[in-house]
């Protein structure tokens, strides 16, 4: 099975968030970067499928130079080759890059790079940890004219195509079948991720990494979705100590859990 896995590089979860001077994005200097976690699960699922069925796993990522480290990580974990869509040129603001594109334009870039590969399956994470739009995979399917499903935890090959386990709300699941080629967006936690190894990193050095220039993929069309500004959330997390008698404190807590935290 030939599988394309679209991955994104995002700021490390730990990374300190400092808003840039123009309030349009965060300060990217000194930031540590990592593979978007749901994409890591997509990659893992692809690698497991390849180990079972044979074939090829191609990682695809768009972004500036720095994305190379995440691509190498994917190659180290077992992807066979990689395509890097370099898109510094599209930079609008300071630092620039992907952020000035909306999900549709990014998906167009990915679609342009995917199409010539004619993969059997395209996998990507459900959403990114930075922007969290959760749309790129679905739009990519639409642009490629392929069936899709989201929130997938596990994929199996069937005679007619694939069967996937999809997460529904409130602890329910369903299995969904579709013909190939298809696009699936993977939910985190469906399988165990593998750790990066020294052997993997060394082997990755010899694998093919193709670089495409975003400008040449001619995406066209100005974005329809514009991120005007960013700010720190109005409420910062801090511990609320609830006072009063045990009875009063209990009542306040139940109320807060219902209305404020919304977990009841």
């Amino acid at each position, binding site marked *: 099975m030939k599988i394309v896995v679209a991955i994104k590089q995002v700021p490390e979860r730990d990374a300190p968030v400092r808003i840039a001077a123009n309030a349009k994005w965060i300060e990217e200097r000194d930031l540590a970067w990592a593979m978007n976690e749901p994409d890591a699960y997509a990659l893992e699922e692809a690698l497991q499928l390849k180990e079972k069925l044979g074939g090829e796993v191609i990682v695809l990522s768009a972004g500036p130079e720095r994305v190379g480290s995440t691509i190498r990580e994917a190659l180290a974990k077992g992807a066979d080759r990689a395509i890097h869509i370099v898109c510094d040129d599209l930079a609008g603001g300071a630092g620039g890059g992907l952020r000035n594109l909306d999900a549709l334009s990014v998906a167009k870039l990915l679609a342009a790079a995917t199409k010539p590969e004619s993969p059997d399956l395209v996998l990507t994470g459900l959403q990114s940890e930075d922007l969290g739009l959760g*749309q790129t995979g679905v739009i990519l399917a639409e642009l490629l004219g392929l069936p899709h499903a989201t*929130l997938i935890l596990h994929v199996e090959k069937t005679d007619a195509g694939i069967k996937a386990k999809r997460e529904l709300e409130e602890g329910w699941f*369903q299995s969904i079948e579709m*013909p190939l080629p298809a696009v699936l967006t993977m939910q985190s936690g469906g399988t165990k991720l593998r750790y990066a190894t020294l052997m993997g990193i060394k082997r990755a050095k010899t694998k093919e990494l193709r670089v495409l220039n975003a400008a040449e993929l001619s995406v066209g069309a*100005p974005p*329809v979705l514009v991120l005007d500004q960013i700010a720190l959330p109005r409420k910062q997390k801090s511990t609320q100590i609830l006072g009063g008698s045990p009875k009063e404190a209990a009542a306040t807590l139940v109320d*807060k*859990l219902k209305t404020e935290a919304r977990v009841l």
Partner: protein
Amino acid sequence: MSVFLVLEESGGHIKRSSWEALAAAHRLAPVQEITAVVVGAQTEALAQEAAAKPVAKVIRVEHPLLASYTADGFSLALHQLLQNQNAAKWVVLPHTYQVRDYAPALACRMGQVLIGDVTGIDDGPVFQRQLMQGKLQGTYRHSGNGPCFVSVQAGAFRAEPIEAPQQTPAPIELFSPNLASAQIRTRPGEPFRESAQTVDLGSAQRIVSVGRGIKEAENLRLVEDLAAALGAELAASRPICDNGWLPLERQVGSSGHTVTPRLYLAVGISGAIQHLVGMKGSQCIVAINKDPDAPIFEVADYGIVGDLFEVVPALTEAVKAAK
């Protein structure tokens, strides 16, 4: 008719989150410009439920192929509807798993991008949504022509003010999209739940966890009652399992399970690092401990400093009363 509100159904009724989306729609346009849309194979009852709400019109998008949800069926049908009713300026949806599955494709067909998981709408209009896992708030705006798709985070808007039924129900129209079974490429199966394992802390939505503060095995009854009232799984810190008061499979922490429930209620747990690493990813953490300096309070969202033998029974009562 500038706002199309796509309602979602569950078990024969419109979901609550759809009414929250209606509240959001009211921020964009007056009632007389809001059209509610129900989709399915048999939508009459749903349409009547919607017509009682403050909307100008209800459209039933009905087709046998829409009996169960498919991304292909829903995006095809709604695309046809929106093309047919080209007055749509806003398309508002609840940000459900189903909407996340098809709305981006629907928007794409119209050259649009969904503004998803919106938590607030301000003048402009501009839309608030969370970035970087909630560490930042982003303000988005729609640019260009064509309908703007917005999905609304559950709980972000209050559905209560619009719950009162209207005097006269809104008119209901039928729309029959053109669908062929070949166009629907995916075959969804029936929903199922995982076969119930004895204990599955990893996927539990609510967890009540107990620590050394409980003192005696006999006192566990107190937290068991609380867990039952909350519909939560019972878990424990290592000393409790070490003593054999609860089985090892209920241990949370570095040598037990790592859990990420929506609610983690820590009772009599001081918060040793081995425990913290196993539960720090929980969405909402509540701590009950008699020591105000206990480290658990540092990671908690809500804390009650007090005697758990008084607080826990009171909390159990309060939870039961709230139901």
